[in-house]
């Protein structure tokens, strides 16, 4: 078993268009190294030069923001779901179409 990682549209150029990729690793950092071996360049878009998560990238393990779980040191287990999302202006802002707060 492995960890499923959901990749946002803007980063799918690194995954050959795949929405979901699989990887292994005990921590988020190890998982990204594993994934980068098959999808080179992806890791470089998630991690900034200083070795920290990119400011405008949000990553969730089982729906919880990893910045509150130890960041790149966050523990990962088989069967976990990892979601990558870009930071956007949402919430009580401006909404297209018919909805919003």
């Amino acid at each position, binding site marked *: 078993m492995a960890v499923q990682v959901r990749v*946002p*549209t*803007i*980063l799918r150029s690194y995954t050959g268009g795949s929405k979901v990729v699989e990887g292994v690793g005990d921590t988020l950092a190890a998982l990204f190294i594993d994934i980068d071996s098959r999808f080179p360049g992806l890791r470089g*878009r998630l991690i900034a030069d200083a070795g920290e998560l*990119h*400011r*405008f*990238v*949000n990553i*969730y393990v089982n*729906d*919880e*923001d990893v*910045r*509150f*779980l130890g960041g790149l040191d966050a523990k990962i287990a088989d069967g976990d779901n990892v*979601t990558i*999302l*870009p*930071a*956007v*202006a*949402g*919430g*009580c*802002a*401006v*909404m*297209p*179409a*018919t*909805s*919003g*707060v």
Partner: protein
Amino acid sequence: MRFDSLMDSVGRTPLVGLPRLSPSPDVRLWAKLEQDNPTGSIKDRAALWMITDGEKRGLLTPGATVLEPTSGNTGISLAMVCRQRGYRLICVMPENTSTERRQLLTMWGAEIVYSSATGGSNEAVAVAKRLAAEHPDWVMLYQYGNPANAQAHYETTGPELLEDLPSITHFVAGLGTTGTLMGTGRFLRERVQGIRIIAAEPRYGEIVYGLRNIDEGFIPELYDESVLTTRISVGPKESLRRTRQMVEEEGIFAGISTGCILHAALIEADKCVRAGQRADIAIVVCDGGWKYLSTGAYAGTLEEAEAALEGQLWA
């Protein structure tokens, strides 16, 4: 309760127990009913505080023009306050905003400037910033970066919660401008040892995240990660399911962002039950469901409602 004017009645909203949604007698949920504010949302607090702060700092003088990127509750709240105080309000919003929204804002007295539909909210913020630069006499209150937004909650929402629920252990609210979480969170952290401040973050459809580049991302200037205990991402399906549960089980007809918050609160409540800890969890009901009827959120199956929300900023 008697007030000198509508604006004097902002805040002091009821806190009601959610006995049917609470998982046990020791782990209880409480809802702060912000739809009881004058224009029907929690944004009345931020709008009133930002306008009053602008007056105190001399930015707003009689007849001033206020500018803000919003087609949501903040726009409605600002329109109400601006009309009462004699200011002109211009709201910048994407051109595909619903007719219902435009009517509401126009009714309360706002003027509308459109930004391109494809640029979404990032573009509306950019257009507003450009207009502000072109018109130095216009005042952009900018809810994402205006400390008075968070201060409203530090001075009102926080104290009200602590007064009504001294045994509070958790506060759960939505993450938009971050004003509610930052202000209320800071107040409670200073006074309640071990308080958990939980952000419920709406997760939208893919179109909403369709930026050209990661570097074009946006984080509200008000956001301070250290105020939060954690941040939970909640998708449209869970948010819709919980929004319906709220009205079916507790009789509270709320907007969809409240379902998002309730979902995060129930995750925390479940952790407490399993750990055998007592908890008093306060959640925010941001607004009523009226403005979202046309989204289809309350009709048909959950799958149909979810499909209808695809591509929309529903919270």
